[in-house]
């Protein structure tokens, strides 16, 4: 659990971010836009980072292909939503809103399937060799990238299909806010709570937390830890693909998504404290907000790179104060 020093650090970071955001904005509405954008990015980050963090805690595997699942999710959702492409759902689901649900489900299914194959087919023989796994998952991310280029070419797709939720806005303080972003933020928060409850309350959650401490002993109690590994890994990949799918209407689908989100998610996991679920949730929100504030600050200045280096800056700052991360065990 987080000690007092961590809570103070979190409060200071939030205060600093809000301070800068407030100084940047001309109106409460402006401030609100930055806040919503930050939460939106934070939730997308959480969807990549949660799998990364839980898998690392339980299995000691840093899955460098986690970002690829996000990218593949974005492509599958894009493809399924728009006419043409590999999956064409336009005739089956002519209503674009329903089709989007179909597209997200397709992305989740592909993510889960690819995650299952990676764990069962490639990772499983290498559980006693952490370095090999690192190299392997890195290799898989390269292969995934080439496959995506082969199937969908290197040209980035921007989302053109208009559907209800994606296009609707609501007004507050004289500003127009995207309902879709709010919707993703709401879903992200629901997922944070749901996964948290699963970890705290369910039998599988008890097994996961016990496995983080001592895998051998869990096994010696008669529990098939390998099967739990497969389940957790598959779920982690499915959630990352889900993240890519819900991000696509805003970010489109492009080959750079994987690496961008992998790096940011690694920053989140280390900053939150390796293997701590609460740390990952809090870290995602902090990094998401920091990126949004940096984007706002960088507009019209020479510091165009500020948003992309912000996660690492924040990470360094936190590690200077808490070397094991915000919620990490020292």
């Amino acid at each position: 659990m987080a000690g007092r020093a961590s809570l103070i650090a979190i409060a200071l970071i939030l205060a600093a971010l809000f301070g800068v955001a407030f100084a940047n904005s001309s109106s409460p509405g402006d401030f609100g836009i930055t806040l919503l954008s930050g939460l939106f990015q934070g939730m997308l980050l959480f969807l990549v980072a949660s799998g990364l963090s839980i898998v690392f805690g339980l299995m000691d595997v840093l899955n460098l292909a986690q970002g690829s699942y996000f990218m593949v999710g974005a492509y599958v959702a894009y493809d399924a939503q728009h006419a043409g492409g590999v999956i064409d759902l336009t005739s089956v689901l002519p209503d674009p809103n329903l089709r989007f649900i179909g597209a997200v489900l397709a992305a989740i299914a592909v993510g889960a399937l690819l995650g299952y194959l990676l764990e069962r087919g490639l990772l499983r023989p290498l559980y006693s060799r952490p370095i090999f796994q690192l190299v392997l998952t890195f290799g898989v991310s390269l292969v995934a990238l080439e496959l995506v280029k082969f199937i969908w070419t290197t040209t980035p797709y921007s989302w053109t299909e208009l559907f209800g939720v994606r296009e609707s806005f609501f007004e507050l303080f004289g500003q127009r806010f995207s309902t879709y972003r709010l919707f993703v933020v709401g879903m992200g928060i629901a997922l944070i709570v749901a996964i948290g409850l699963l970890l705290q309350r369910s039998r599988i959650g008890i097994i996961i937390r016990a496995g983080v401490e001592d895998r051998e002993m869990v096994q010696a109690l008669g529990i098939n830890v390998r099967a739990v590994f497969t389940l957790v890994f598959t779920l982690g990949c499915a959630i990352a693909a889900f993240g890519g799918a819900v991000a696509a209407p805003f970010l489109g689908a492009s080959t750079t998504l994987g690496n961008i989100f992998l790096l940011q998610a690694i920053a989140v996991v280390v900053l939150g404290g390796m293997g701590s679920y609460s740390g990952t949730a809090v870290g995602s929100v902090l990094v998401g907000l920091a990126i949004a504030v940096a984007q706002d600050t960088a507009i019209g200045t020479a510091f165009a790179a500020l948003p992309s280096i912000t996660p690492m800056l924040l990470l360094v700052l936190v590690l200077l104060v808490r070397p094991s991360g915000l919620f990490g065990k020292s």
Partner: protein
Amino acid sequence: MSSILEVRDIHTFIGQFHILEGVSVSVTTGGITVLLGRNGAGKTTTLRSIIGLTPPARGSIHFDGKPIQGRQSHNIAQLGIGYVPEHRAIFRSLSVRENLQLAERRSGDFARKADFIFDLFPDLKRLIELPGGNLSGGQQQMLAVARALVPENRLLLIDEPSEGLAPVIIEQLIAAIQRLSSQVSVLLVEQNFRVASKLAQSYVIIDEGHSVAAGAMADLVQDKALIQRYLGVA
């Protein structure tokens, strides 16, 4: 007398190290057998070989007449073997209740056994919601033993339960193990010779990865030369 566990001439490697070079152990159904031997003799590795955490490369292990060597740990445990590792390896971040629930093999195991467990270890009842890491050493050891009693186990492998505990706690543990041995067979590793001789009916001595002597505890107690030679206690 029938034996619930028959370990015959097992050889176990850890990495490239040949740790067990021929260990045989027999546990009588309904009895307590103690594994004796100096530090580093291979007692823990013997227990870990039986439960499948360090699977033996050669030799055979029969539980209830059926061969179990080569199976995965969780399959071996599910046959009805409970493992209580050394150093009180309970889950520190899990509550006492969660530690016990985790050990269930069928849902409702804990509820069925709760009365028996709390009768044996009354302390655990009031500590039930505390994280395992907050318990004292003795309480953690009791939790580790209790955990092995949640499912229907027919054999318990208990590794140095008295290590580092105060005498009064050791007495409690002895009493508990004595009581539960009316329901399950036990293979016990115990350095404290007084505790071992109080509890066990038979013994096996392990020395440098070999089982070198075995027999009735009552005979060993008389055999000062054997004790001196392998255990270094008089």
